[in-house]
């Protein structure tokens, strides 16, 4: 929602978010270094810092990964999602500091350049104790670098949100590589079962939350007609009109809370059916910003408000209110016998369609 790009679109919420983030990271680093210095006073400062940065990045990566499913399971987590990109960039910076120290400590003063040294170190892939875990970390670092470098809205617009999202899904590959990097590297040098347990618990938590959130959302992705829902021909439509004129009944209008949406699957994607002020309208569920789930948002001041970063759309037209220019596809809606009926053909983004009036329609249908 902008007329031109800026480095960062600061607002009060973002500043509070970032301040909390920086304080949290500094506190973590201080605690980690303090605890390590107490329990292992012989460790050199570089190695202690290298581990502190690496562990901090790994912990932040877990936070980044669990925010998505947590928000889908419970809306109270949504404030954490608001500025997740800054969380990701902070995680990358910690990873970068870890990588720089690792290069300085282990690869800067050999016979070959640092990159060649990392790639050719520990060539024993048949041995757990000498597995080349550093190239795994390097590969994960490359992915996180690509993600941090493309985190600006310019890249969202120029790659388009679906491509940008697909690119940023590589974070799961990076996570897998980092779990192996940690398991095969740092944990080999540690005798403590606590670190191994924490790494395993982190992996379990990330996996479980994703599975639970996916199971919870699965019903919304069942295509409606295929699920055997009621399909009706609207009043006034000649009996010999084509099947294109069918309307799909998606839910009882009373099941949609005021100012909220029912999410359904039509024409191959999710559709958000909003009810507000006695009216019903439907738009494609994917926000034009980062494809956030509009149907999980609310109608605020007459506008559908995306739960992720607050982009707004007028329910009847799917357009952002002036002066903004975001647009999402819309769907024709009717209310009949207390049921919401939708024409499953999406209209071009920003097409104004008359919302269904609940009172009139229920009266007419009953």
């Amino acid at each position, binding site marked *: 929602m*902008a*007329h*031109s*790009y*800026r*480095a*960062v679109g600061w607002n009060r919420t973002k500043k509070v978010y970032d301040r909390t983030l920086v304080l949290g990271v500094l506190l973590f680093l201080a605690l980690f270094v303090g605890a390590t210095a107490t329990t292992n006073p012989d460790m050199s400062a570089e190695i202690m810092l290298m581990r502190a940065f690496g562990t901090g990045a790994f912990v932040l990566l877990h936070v980044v990964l669990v925010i998505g499913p947590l928000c889908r399971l419970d809306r109270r987590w949504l404030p954490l999602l608001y500025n997740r990109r800054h969380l990701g960039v902070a995680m990358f910076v910690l990873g970068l500091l870890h990588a720089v120290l690792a290069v300085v400590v282990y690869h800067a003063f050999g016979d*070959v*350049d640092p*990159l*060649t*040294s990392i*790639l*050719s170190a520990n*060539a024993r892939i048949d041995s757990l104790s000498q597995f*080349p875990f550093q*190239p795994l970390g390097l590969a994960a670092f490359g992915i996180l*670098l*690509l993600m*941090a*470098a*493309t985190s*600006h809205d*310019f*890249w969202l*617009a*120029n790659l*388009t*949100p*679906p491509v940008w999202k697909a690119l940023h899904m590589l974070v799961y590959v990076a996570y897998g590589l980092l779990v192996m990097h940690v398991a095969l590297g740092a944990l080999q040098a540690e005798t403590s079962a606590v670190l191994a347990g924490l790494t395993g618990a982190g992996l379990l938590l990330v996996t479980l939350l994703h599975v639970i959130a996916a199971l919870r959302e699965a019903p919304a992705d069942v295509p409606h007609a295929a699920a055997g829902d009621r399909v009706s021909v609207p009043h006034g439509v000649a009996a010999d009109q084509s099947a294109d004129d069918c309307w799909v009944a998606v839910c009882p209008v009373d099941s949609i809370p005021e100012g909220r949406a029912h999410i359904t699957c039509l*024409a*191959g*994607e999710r*559709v958000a059916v909003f009810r507000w002020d006695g009216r019903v309208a439907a738009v*494609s569920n*994917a926000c*034009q910003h980062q494809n956030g789930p509009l149907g999980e948002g609310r109608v605020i001041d007459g506008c559908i408000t995306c739960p992720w970063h607050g982009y707004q759309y007028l329910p009847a037209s799917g357009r952002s209110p002036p002066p903004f220019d975001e647009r999402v*596809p819309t769907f024709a809606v009717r209310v009949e016998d207390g049921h919401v009926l939708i024409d499953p*053909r*999406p*209209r*071009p*983004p920003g*097409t104004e369609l008359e919302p269904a009036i609940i009172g009139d329609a229920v009266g007419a249908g009953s």
Partner: protein
Amino acid sequence: MSVDVAWWVSRAVLAYGLVGLLFAVLFVSLGVRRVDPLAAEGTLGFRLAILPGCALLWPLMARRWLSGQRHPPQERSAHRAAAAAQHVDDGA
């Protein structure tokens, strides 16, 4: 990976990065305003923020710059594609 192979791989990575960095400096100074009108008024901070991405994705941005495209591509999704197809049918 043997030291020889690792040496060649690291040279290739460095070459890609160096070309990318040179391209990125040129692109954020001159090219970006041609491919995205919203970037025309971009601040120095904005240009610096997108510079690493331009260095990494330079083949993509170079192709777009050379092709003379004036706007970012349109997002593709099932709904947008179906709506566009419908629109064409209606217009025909």
